[in-house]
């Protein structure tokens, strides 16, 4: 997605950081396919924070409240095993993590540790929910992308099975 060009005499009106943020988000698989107008609205909901190397963004088991997007630097996703911490994947600029927070606040399935000094964009679930209420298209596109991400995880880990829904209690014949 290209940064929108304004006539030179109007360029002073543009907020360059904000103008860069929307195209940056468009490169993330989670927000691919969102029109520029909605990307602009979504971009305003993100907060930005700098992290030092070695800092933990969140721990495994913490309630999930926010989605993170790496602007620069590197972040490792780790999981605790009986033999110690196991690095599941390493993320770089443009990658998103903690996506499941957009669905519910269930505990984090892994920890996120900053591997190289990083700047992260943070989207809090309440903000995303509020945006979905007024812009249903955001919900459709992001949830479709999120389903693709989950499908990829499920194919990589075929042991993951969905639990059967609890059966309604059998009617008492008496």
């Amino acid at each position: 997605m290209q940064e929108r060009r304004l006539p030179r005499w109007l360029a002073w009106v543009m907020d360059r950081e904000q103008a860069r943020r929307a195209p940056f988000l468009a490169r993330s698989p989670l927000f691919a396919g969102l029109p520029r107008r909605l990307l602009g609205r979504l971009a305003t909901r993100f907060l930005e924070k700098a992290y030092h190397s070695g800092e933990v963004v969140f721990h495994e088991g913490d309630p999930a409240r926010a989605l993170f997007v790496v602007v620069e630097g590197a972040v490792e996703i780790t999981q605790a095993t009986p033999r110690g911490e196991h690095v599941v994947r390493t993320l770089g600029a443009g990658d998103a993590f903690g996506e499941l927070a957009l669905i519910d606040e269930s505990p984090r399935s892994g920890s996120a540790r900053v591997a190289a000094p990083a700047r992260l964009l943070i989207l809090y679930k309440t903000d995303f929910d509020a945006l979905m209420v007024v812009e249903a298209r955001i919900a459709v596109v992001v949830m479709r992308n999120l389903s693709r991400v989950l499908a990829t995880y499920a194919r990589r880990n075929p042991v993951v099975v969905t639990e059967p829904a609890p059966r309604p209690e059998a009617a008492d014949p008496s």
Partner: protein
Amino acid sequence: MKPGWLLTIAGVAALAWLARGLVLPVFLAMAFAYLLSPAVAWADARAIRRSVAVGALFAVIIAGLLAAGLLLGPRILAEASVLVERLPALATQIDRGLDAALRELAEVAPVLRRVFPEGSGWVHRFVLDRPPWDPSDLFEHAGHLFLLAILVPFFAFFLLRDMPRLITAAMDRLPPQHVETSVAVWRELNGIIGRYVRGVVLDGLVVGALAALGLWALRVPYPLLLGLFAGVANVVPFVGPLLSAAAAGLVVLLTPGQGLAALARVIVLFLAVKVLDDTVIQPFTIGRTVHLHPALLLGSVVVGNHALGVLGMIVAVPVATVLQETARLLLEHRRVLARRRLRSDAGRLRG
């Protein structure tokens, strides 16, 4: 707690005490900024620089206020000056009415005659015959209003322009383990306060307009002035609607030719506006922002009144909601930290 933290807290408290005169302008500026924030967010989404967006917004507001002043100002001023002219006659009328009521009551309880002697002219004494204001008092009040008119837009401008930068600076100083909860608390509170402020203002506008239209239809004098009062008073929970209905009822009672039937019509009008407000207008404007138990809601208004008077009653509901939500999120954060400690202890024991 570390001595450094104690010193910082004491320093902030001392500064807050010294700058207590700024509490009202800052509070009003925050409310004003929350009111305008959707328009600034609209500009943000289009990557328009905040200073440009906020400047343009203020220019539009000033133009709108000038237009409204030119259109409605003369009518409201005319109604107010007629009311002021009629005030001595109205006061005499009320005093006569009070004397008649006291005479009737004194027949049942003669002791009242000694406590409230006839012909005391209560309204004249307490409302009209007050010693004239000291000119310096007048200048002081005018000075305060002028200062508010300058400081509120001034603070609101900078709050709107610089808030994202301030938040980023604060976020960068937060320890990582507290970021998610801090973000959660901040966004939750921001949403609650923003929706509440915008909802209350919109609600006041609709209620004021409905009251003014209804009073005009019922041919009650000063409909614009009373509608304006109803809209502003609506900001104060519970008491505001009662006060505006009482003011309209008093005007009806003191207007020759408007009898008890007119008073009943005004009461029905204000009841209808209140029911409409609670069932139709508020769900659209304030929505489900406030999740307080009705008893807690009433209690917060009473406490607010004791602490800060009318201002306290206005801020009581959002403050109580914010405190409740903050406490919920912080308690949850404490539980998370406790669980984390337990897990790491268990890991150490296994190792």
